[in-house]
Structure formats: C-alpha cells, structure tokens
C-alpha cells in the first residue's frame, strides 16, 4: 500500500507542478487562489512521497526495488533513514522536496503589489520542478517494485554509515536547490518590465543567504567525514563531485556580497542577475556530473547514460533560455557606477572577481579531462597538484582583501584614516602570529603566509565584535571570523603535519613530536554488522601522564563483503593525533601510521562559526522580508 501511495503522490506532485506553471501564466481573478492550491499541493504531495519512501526503508519493505538495492535488516535505524537519500533515486526525491519547499516560500511572498513578479517567479520555479519530477518518474522512480520480494536487501556500503555523512546530503541540497529560487527571481526580473518598485534583490538575498549557509555547512560536513572516516589523512581531494559543490559555493559567495552592493548602491545589478543564473546552472551541471555516469569518482552514482542525456538536455534548455534572456533583456540593469578599489564596494568587487576566477579555474580543471578525452581519445588526470598551483595562489589575495574590505567606507576612502583604523589589528595579528610560531616552531613560507592571513582576518573581526559597532552587520563579522579560523586550521594541518609509519609489535613504543605511544594490545571485537581487529595504543605526554587510548580498527562487513579502516583520533585545540592500523600479525607486528595534525579542529570550528554567521544573517534578512 505504502509504495503505491508514494508513487501516486509523486505523480500528484507532477500534476501540481504543471498546474502551477500554467496558472502562474494566466491572468485570472482567482489566480491567487489557484496558485495557493498548486504551491500547497506541490509541497504536500512531494512531502508525502518522500516520507513514504522513508517509511518503506524503515520497515524494510523489500518489494520496493530501491529498498532492496540499498538496505538490509541489520542496518541501524538511523542509517536506514539516511539510506533514503544515499542512493540516486531516493536523493532525487529529496531534490524535489527541497525544490517544493523553496517554491512554497516564494509563494508566501505573494501579495497584491508584487503579484505579476512573484507569478513569473513561480512559473519558472514550477518549470524547474516539473523537469526534475519528470526526470525522476521517467528514469529514476524510487517506488519501482521488485516482485516477488526478496527476504533481505543488498545491504549498503558501510563506509557511508556515518553521522556526518548522513546529514551531509540534505544540507547540501538546501544549498544547491535553494539557488533555484535565486534563479527564478532572476528570470522574473529579466522577463518583466515595470518592476521598478519590486525589491527583487531583497527577495533574492534572503534565499541566497539560506542556500549559501547550508551549502557551506554541507560541504564542511562532507570534508569532516572524509577526514574522520576515510583514513587518508586529508579532507579535500579535488574530486570532480567535490568541485561540483565548491563551484556554486564560490559563485554564491560572490553573489551574496554583490547583493550588498545592489542594496546599498543600486549598482552591479546585471552582474547579480548573471551570477544567480550561473550559480544554479552550476548546481544542475553538478547534478549531471554525479548522476550521468560520465565520470569515475568515489562520489558518483554508477548509472546509465540515458539518464545523463535527460539531465544534459534539461541543462541545455535552462541554460540556453536563461543566458539568451540575459543577453537580450539585461541592458537596463547595467549602470555607469564605477568604483575605486580602495573602498568597500571596490573590495567587494575584487573579492567577486577573484571568486569568479577561482570558480572558472576549478570548472576548467574538472571539465578538461572530459574535453581532452572527447577530442583526442586520450585520458589525462587533473589532480590536486594542479589546483594547488592555480587556485591556492589566487585565493591568497582574496583573503588579504577580505581583511581590509569591511573596514573601508563606501565611496572613496582616505588612506591615512584607513591606516589608523587597521593599526590595532596589524598589531594584534603580529602578536598572535608570533605566539603561534613559538608553539609550533615551524617556519615554512606557506605556513607563515597562511597564519598571518588567518590572524589578520581573526583580529580584524574580533575588534569589530569588541567595539560593537552597529555599522557592521554582525552576521558578516561572525562569518568572516569563521573564515579566519578556517584558514588557521587549513594552514596548520596542511603545512605542519608530521607523519610516522612504522611496524610495531605488542608492547613496542614510538615517539611523535612530544608524545610517546605504546602498542598495548590487539582485540577482536564485534559490532552490530561487522567484526573487527582493534589495536589499543596508549598515548603519553612528556611528563609520562597518559593522555588517551587510541583504538583504530580494521573492520569486515559480511553483508557487503567490505573491508574498512576506522581511524582513531584524539583531538584538542592544538592538534589531532591520528592513528591508522595497517596489516600485520602477532609475529611480525603491525604497520602503524601515525599523524600529528596541528590545528585541524579549527577547520570544523571555523566552519561552524561561518554557519552561525549565516544563520544570524538569515534571521535578519528574513525578518526584513516580512516587512516588505
């Protein structure tokens, strides 16, 4: 019964999406009522569909193909739930749900004054939603049945059974999918005339803040999962699918900042309209890369190309229409306001340009191997070294500017005045930097540059916080502070990492930095759906006090015939101690890999603070919306 209802709800949502498209177009007396029915119906039917899919996963209804392929009775409840979106078909349902939620909030903006504008926005949003629901029904229906039902499912990849990974997709989707609202608003702005009184940028800003905030934390959680779970010692690999989430993030950061200029100076409107189109297009292209089977990546859902062709066609339609619309209708949004770069708007422009350059470079690196393959039948790789050579050097000036930008005034800035303003932070930066170098005693050039930059940002924003200057948006201060901390963590962990690889027998000792590590024993343990070999390592500091016991494991999951390594990490504010257990036996001992990773926790703390800054900003923006 449940699968049937779920499928029915999915078709129902298609009906509502198509209806919304048509009623938004027509001008009728009852327009508002019809739109209300469509938007509400769309939200309710997609929710029912989604939760029914969740239900069949929870009760392990293996007559549903999706449940059979991705679940197993021994999976813990939490992961049965997150398994709903851990596969292609289920995640499409999540995409649709989020689309309809944003659609609903666009609808809530509808009033007599902006009816034409919001109708056009809803029309666009409905078109997008229809496209995705149709895609799901035609090529990826999660409610497909498998009868007769098997007794149990194919289990699920144990590497993906992790809390951070479980929440990572929904948060990311609020990001990606949220940009659809900005896209729709942009289309409406370009399509209509006579909208001088419509504060489209205020509407757009609210949606962009929400989407950006969740995209940021979604990406951070993915990185956190990679670090804690994969055992590769790193958290970002420039994998094409990671890049697919990073590119919308870059553009939406630029978009967020440009919207401020639109608000305060009525300038850069054309740029904002273009950015909002590109950000969403990149989200859709990202979806394409992950699901079309065109790339090989840890993240891709292995699928057949016909699905890829649909998404590609859809991207072509959306992209073609929006870019042509922009090409023909954006003229009136270009202005002749120019800024000197020694001003707030100038620094935002610099930030924008740099974000766009980085985004273009990441896009180039991601797509280039495919271009080469298509044209020469040769395969090349574009890996981390490429991005380190190109993206990192460009981000450094961006960060530098980020430190000064908020201090500068709108319009031209008096240079001597600025110096007076930033002097305290220069001082604070110097003090903090020296302090850090005394602790870590590591002096590579990149390390120095990174630390100074990080503290530059941190001290500037701390001073803002302390001075409680009402001029500066508190959301921005918190978010920028978060970025400073993020850079601190990234610099410390990348440049000052220590690694030791040795073979240890039981009772052997080793030393890394100032820690003594003793291999106490090896245990065989059982988990709910795995068996494991667990190493116990005692960690002592220089005063011979025990700090912690690290217990890395090598697990075997019988249901999927998978081996995984579980890293054991001890974290504090200064550093992570990270141990991986390799292969071995009682006679020869085991291969042990130990990392000393300074300042890693600041990456996660920084991300969390950026997220909080976003939430604070969201609150302010949404409250403003209610007044409109």
């Amino acid at each position: 019964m449940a699968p049937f209802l779920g499928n029915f709800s999915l078709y129902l949502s298609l009906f509502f999406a198509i209806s919304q498209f048509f009623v938004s177009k027509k001008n009728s007396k009852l327009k508002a009522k019809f739109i209300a029915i469509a938007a509400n119906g769309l939200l309710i039917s997609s929710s029912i569909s989604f939760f029914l899919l969740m239900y069949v996963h929870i009760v392990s209804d293996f007559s549903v193909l999706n449940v059979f392929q991705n679940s197993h009775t021994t999976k813990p409840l939490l992961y049965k739930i997150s398994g709903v979106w851990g596969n292609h078909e289920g995640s499409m349902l999540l995409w649709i749900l989020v689309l309809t939620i944003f659609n609903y909030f666009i609808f809530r903006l509808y009033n007599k004054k902006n009816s034409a504008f919001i109708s056009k926005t809803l029309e666009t949003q409905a078109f997008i939603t229809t496209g995705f629901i149709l895609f799901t029904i035609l090529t990826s229906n999660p409610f497909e049945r498998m009868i007769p039902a098997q007794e149990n499912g194919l289990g699920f990849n144990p590497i993906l059974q992790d809390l951070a990974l479980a929440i990572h997709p929904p948060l990311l989707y609020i990001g990606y999918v949220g940009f659809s609202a900005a896209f729709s608003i942009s289309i409406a702005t370009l399509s209509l005339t006579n909208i001088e009184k419509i504060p489209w940028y205020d509407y757009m800003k609210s949606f962009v803040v929400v989407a950006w905030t969740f995209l940021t934390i979604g990406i951070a959680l993915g990185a956190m999962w990679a670090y804690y779970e994969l055992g590769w010692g790193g958290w970002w690999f420039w994998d094409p699918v990671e890049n697919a989430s990073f590119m919308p993030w870059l553009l939406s950061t630029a978009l967020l900042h440009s919207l401020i200029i639109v608000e305060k100076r009525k300038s850069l409107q054309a740029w904002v309209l273009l950015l909002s189109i590109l950000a969403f297009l990149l989200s859709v292209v990202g979806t394409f890369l992950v699901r079309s089977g065109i790339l090989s990546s840890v993240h891709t859902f292995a699928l057949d190309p016909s699905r890829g062709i649909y998404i590609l066609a859809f991207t072509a339609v959306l992209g073609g229409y929006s870019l042509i619309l922009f090409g023909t209708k954006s003229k009136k949004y270009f202005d002749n306001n120019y800024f000197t770069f020694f001003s707030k708007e100038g620094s935002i422009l610099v930030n924008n340009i740099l974000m766009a350059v980085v985004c273009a470079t990441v896009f180039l690196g991601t797509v280039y191997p495919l271009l080469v393959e298509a044209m020469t039948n040769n395969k090349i790789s574009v890996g981390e070294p490429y991005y380190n050579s190109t993206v990192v050097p460009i981000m450094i000036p961006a960060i530098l500017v980020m430190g000064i930008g908020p201090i500068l005034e709108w319009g031209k800035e008096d240079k001597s005045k600025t110096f007076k303003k930033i002097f305290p932070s220069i001082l604070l930066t110097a003090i903090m930097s020296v302090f850090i170098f005394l602790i870590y005693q590591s002096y590579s050039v990149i390390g120095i540059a990174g630390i100074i930059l990080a503290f530059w940002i941190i001290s500037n924003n701390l001073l803002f916080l302390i001075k409680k200057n009402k001029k500066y948006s508190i959301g921005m201060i918190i978010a920028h502070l978060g970025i400073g901390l993020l850079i601190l963590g990234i610099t410390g962990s990348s440049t000052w990492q220590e690694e030791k690889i040795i073979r240890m027998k039981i009772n052997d000792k080793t030393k890394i930095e100032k820690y003594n590590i003793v291999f106490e024993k090896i245990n065989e343990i059982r988990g709910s759906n795995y068996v494991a070999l667990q190493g116990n390592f005692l960690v002592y500091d220089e005063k011979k006090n025990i700090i912690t016991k690290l217990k890395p494991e090598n697990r075997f999951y019988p249901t999927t015939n998978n081996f995984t390594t579980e890293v054991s990490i001890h974290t504090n504010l200064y550093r992570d101690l990270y141990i991986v257990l390799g292969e071995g036996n009682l006679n020869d001992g085991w291969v042990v890999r130990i990392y000393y990773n300074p300042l890693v926790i600041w990456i996660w703390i920084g991300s969390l603070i950026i997220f909080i800054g976003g939430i604070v900003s969201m609150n302010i923006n949404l409250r403003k919306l209610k007044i409109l």
Partner: protein
Amino acid sequence: MINKTFIIIISICLIQFFSNNSYMVEPDEVLENKKQELRARNISKNIRCMICQNQSIDESSAPLAKDLRILIRDKVKDGKKDKEIYKFLTDRYGDFILLKPPLRLNTLALWILPFIFLAIGIFIVFSYNKKSKKI
C-alpha cells in the same frame, strides 16, 4: 550496469588481496637515505593510483600502488632523475597516471587559461578604478 559490474569486479580483485594486504607506504619500503626517500615520496604523490578513485600511490592501499612505490624507490636508488622516472611511467600508463597534468600541446589551454582569467579579472578591476576617477 556495465559500470556497476566493473566496480564489483575490481573490488573483488582487491579483496582477494586483502589477506596479504598492504597499507600505504610501509616501513619496509622506506629508503634509508632521507633525501632519496623524500624524492620518492614527492614523485609518488604525483602518481595516480589507477584502481582507486582520485588517490595517489603514496596514500593508496592497493597492491599495484605498492609495486609502483617500490619501483620508484628502486629507480631513485639507481640514480635516475625525476624526469626519467615520470617518462618510464607515462610510457606505460599514459599521461593519465600523472596527477599534475604535464605541459603538452593538449594541456596548453589548461595551464594558460587560469592566468588569462586572472588577467581579465585584474583588467576589470583596474578599469573600474580608472573610470571611477574620471567622474
């Protein structure tokens, strides 16, 4: 479906290995000469693990990665230059095995465009600055 089968097959092959498994750079592989070891590791970090997704052979636990790591160390000990070692590998596996795309005719655009993007960006900022002063 072809892709899925392939992944399963490769994983099965890897699993067969696990009983005599190897994890990343092993202590037995490490060269005594620290300079040579550093060279070997830097080269390894630029070599792609062919069966893994987006990992270098330095980090990978795959057996082929281990074989290549040992091969690289042998060649470093033999006195071969970095360039020669890379050529040895690309002759057999193609440019795909290099994580840092080499500068060739077909990667010219890849390496030049970021700087062109940056130049365009700087141009825009400067022209904005200039035009603002005219007003």
